[in-house]
């Protein structure tokens, strides 16, 4: 592929097995340009951390090549790869001060004392931790430790930084602040970042591109908005954000739209994503916030469904309404809390519909 020539990091047909019987990573292909912030997202056991460890050099690929700047690094030991890494539990050396921790990668690279001190200072200032150089990691809060771990991974100016769920142990507010700081820093310094998380919000807000892992494969690799709005299969649709699903059979395909007959007998419009022929079983997916119950806002020829309001939950910025639609009680719609927004009441009968392009017919 032409693209791969310019790729900074590339996985080529990588497989990994621990026990010789099961593949943890199955035929992984991935290429990243320089400077990209890529997130590996997936449930636990999906192979994302294994991929990261193979890239860092702590696991060897059973098959395939991992390329860094065009060179295969399969046989290069981790300490020669020059990849910065931030660990889930920070892995700050408890017997060293913050400054010694930062100085460590420079010392092993035989950098002179004065230059070392200057770099350590710069790296600490970068994460606003300049005053903490003399402290031990145990004297720092979780967020501070995370900042130190980050600056330690960056102090020797690696071109590639790996982060293994670095914010997993922090509380929500701190996590959000740090998410912002990490992305800013990564873009400012122009470093290529591979970030592993199981938190989809984190993945969506931070990344240039997100690779959704499941069952040892990348299910979809796309920019956050595309991932959210145009999931390629029902796993991605389910995993990213909230989602309504309805099962049915493809009745008719014309170009980029199709008509699906639901199991309840209702007919709806959808975009065929990975359905190819009429009569195939499909699962259609609609985001709760894309469902419309104001008839005036829908196309005249749009298919609509009858729905009964089961529950109305006031959540502050939005309303969340649970409906009974086409035989399921779990159909949810979300509406913005605007002054003119209708507040539905349980028992009320409404008619719902959506733009055909928001409803995606995926694999069953």
């Amino acid at each position, binding site marked *: 592929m032409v693209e791969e020539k310019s790729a900074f990091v590339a996985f080529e047909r990588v497989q990994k097995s621990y026990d010789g019987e099961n593949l943890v990573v199955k035929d992984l292909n991935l290429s990243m340009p320089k400077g990209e912030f890529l997130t590996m997202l997936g449930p636990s056991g999906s192979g994302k951390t294994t991929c990261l460890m193979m890239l*860092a*050099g*702590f696991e060897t690929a059973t098959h395939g090549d991992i390329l860094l700047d065009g060179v295969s690094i399969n046989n290069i*030991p*981790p*300490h*020669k*790869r*020059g*990849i*910065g*890494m931030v*660990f*889930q*539990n920070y*892995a*700050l*050396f*408890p*017997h060293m001060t913050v400054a010694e921790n930062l100085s*460590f*990668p420079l010392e*092993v*690279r035989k950098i002179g004392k004065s230059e070392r001190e200057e770099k350590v200072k710069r790296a600490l200032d970068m994460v606003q931790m300049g005053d903490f150089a003399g402290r031990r990691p145990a004297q720092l809060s979780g967020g501070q430790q995370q900042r130190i771990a980050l600056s*330690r*991974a960056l102090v*020797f100016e690696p071109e590639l930084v*790996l982060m293994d769920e670095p914010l997993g142990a922090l509380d929500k507010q701190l996590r959000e602040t740090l998410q912002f700081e990490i992305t800013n820093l990564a873009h400012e310094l122009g470093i290529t970042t591979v970030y592993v998380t199981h938190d989809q919000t984190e993945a969506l807000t931070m990344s240039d591109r997100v690779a959704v892992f499941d069952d040892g494969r990348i299910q979809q690799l796309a920019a956050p908005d595309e991932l959210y709005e145009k999931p390629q299969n029902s796993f991605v649709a389910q995993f990213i954000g909230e989602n309504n699903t309805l099962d049915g059979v493809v009745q008719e395909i014309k170009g980029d739209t199709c008509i699906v007959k639901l199991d309840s007998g209702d007919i709806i419009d959808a975009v065929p994503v990975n359905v190819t022929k009429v009569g195939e079983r499909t699962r259609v997916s609609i985001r709760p916030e894309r469902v419309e119950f104001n008839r005036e806002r829908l196309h005249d020829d749009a298919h609509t469904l009858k729905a009964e309001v089961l529950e109305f939950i006031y959540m502050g910025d939005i309303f969340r309404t649970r409906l009974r639609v086409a035989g399921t009680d779990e159909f949810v719609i979300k509406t913005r809390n605007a002054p003119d927004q209708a507040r539905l009441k349980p028992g009320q009968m409404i008619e719902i519909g959506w733009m055909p392009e928001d409803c995606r017919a995926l694999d069953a």
Partner: protein
Amino acid sequence: MTEVLAADGRPLKASLNRALRRQKLRALALIAPLLIFILVSFVMPIADMLFRSVENEIVSDTLPRTVKALEGWDSSSGEAPGEAVFNALYTDMALATEYKSHTRLGSRLNYELTGVSSLFRKSGRRVKRFDTDVYADAFRDADPAYADPGQWAAWMSDDTVRAAVPVTAATYDAWAKMIVEVDNDDPAKEEPWDFVYTALYNEAVAGASLPVAVDVSGVEPVSLRDQFVEVDKDWLDIDVWQTIKIYAPKYTNGYFLNSVDLLKGPDGAEARPESERIYVVLFIRTMIMSLSIMGMCVLLGYPIAWLLANLRDRTANLLMILVLLPFWTSLLVRTSAWKVLLQQQGVINDVLVWIGLVADDGRLQLINNQTGTIIAMTHILLPFMILPLYSVMKTIPPSYLRAAKSLGATDWTAFWRVYFPQSVPGIGAGCILVFILSIGYYITPELVGGTKGVFISNRIAYHISSSLNWGLAAALGSILLAVVLLLYWVYDKIVGIDNVKLGG
């Protein structure tokens, strides 16, 4: 400030204290059995040992008069003491023989000067047959009142008589006490023994007014010095008297001086002759061998502990069982097994000869020397190193090593700069355990140590069970205790005792 009251109107503080007191009492009751047990079986024996190492009451208890009389004797005069001391010795010896304490004193002083034991035994046998009966006969002949036990008892409870013959009175009291305690007789029905008459004679000659005036000046005085010398010439030996005088005080540092190869002389500590020095060498050897055993345990235990901490659980458990296996066999069995393995015709030598590393006539001496002790004790104490190391290593997350490597450190640098410093608390704990255990070890050096590979504890055991010199054993034990405490203190200063972790 107004006092805060509880709901029932009592001061809150008092209520709280009452509530807490019950908790404290309950806690105390729970640990009471252990506390008592430790007090009885640990604290008290140690206190007793410390006390015994300086206690020396036996001399002044057995020979109180002699010790007092000796105060006037100058050991540097080159002369044995005079008649007065022998007079006192006569009384003391006569009493001690009845109490049978003279042999104990003999053995006690024999530690300091060989030969004293037999001297005391011999003199004890003969002291009753001294020629002093002439005094008794003279008094009885001069006035029958002196042959009447009842009269004696009457005199001795009369203060004017006592004031007139104070030495006789004191001697009579000691005799009377002995008659009651040893013979279970009534002193008022027994005629006083010769040594009481001797005391009376001495006072009569000195011009004291007797209860019934008699003239005994015609009686030929019996020299007790000659009597004793007749029993054994050693009574003229200045060394004997010096030893008695040096060990006369109730407390002595003699045992401690002895423990460090010094001698308690008349003018303080003196160096012992070269041929008699053993303890300092033994202490140093014990230290060096304990340190070697500790070092071997670290070298052998560290990799095993690392494996244990990093292998998969199943394999690690199996390995752990192998590590703990020695605990399941008796110490004696294991040590005997080492005898089988290490002897010159043993398995290890056979193998070495068979593979040609060692010539058949040059079989290695692996047992009954220091090598044997170090090998066997390293094996026995290894688990005490591995277990604390393992439990500390278990708490070091593997991500530290990974982090170090990702930061550019080679395997060795990552280990040395990151992993090793974090395992130091485990090494510290293991070293303290192994060192303290080995410094006091007894059975293994006894069995495989021969003469060159024994520890100070073997010597202590010898003094406790064979030579029965408990004072010296206690002094050696106290020194050992002090050394351990000192090393502990040094360790605390250098490494810091907070850095010792047995787990978690």
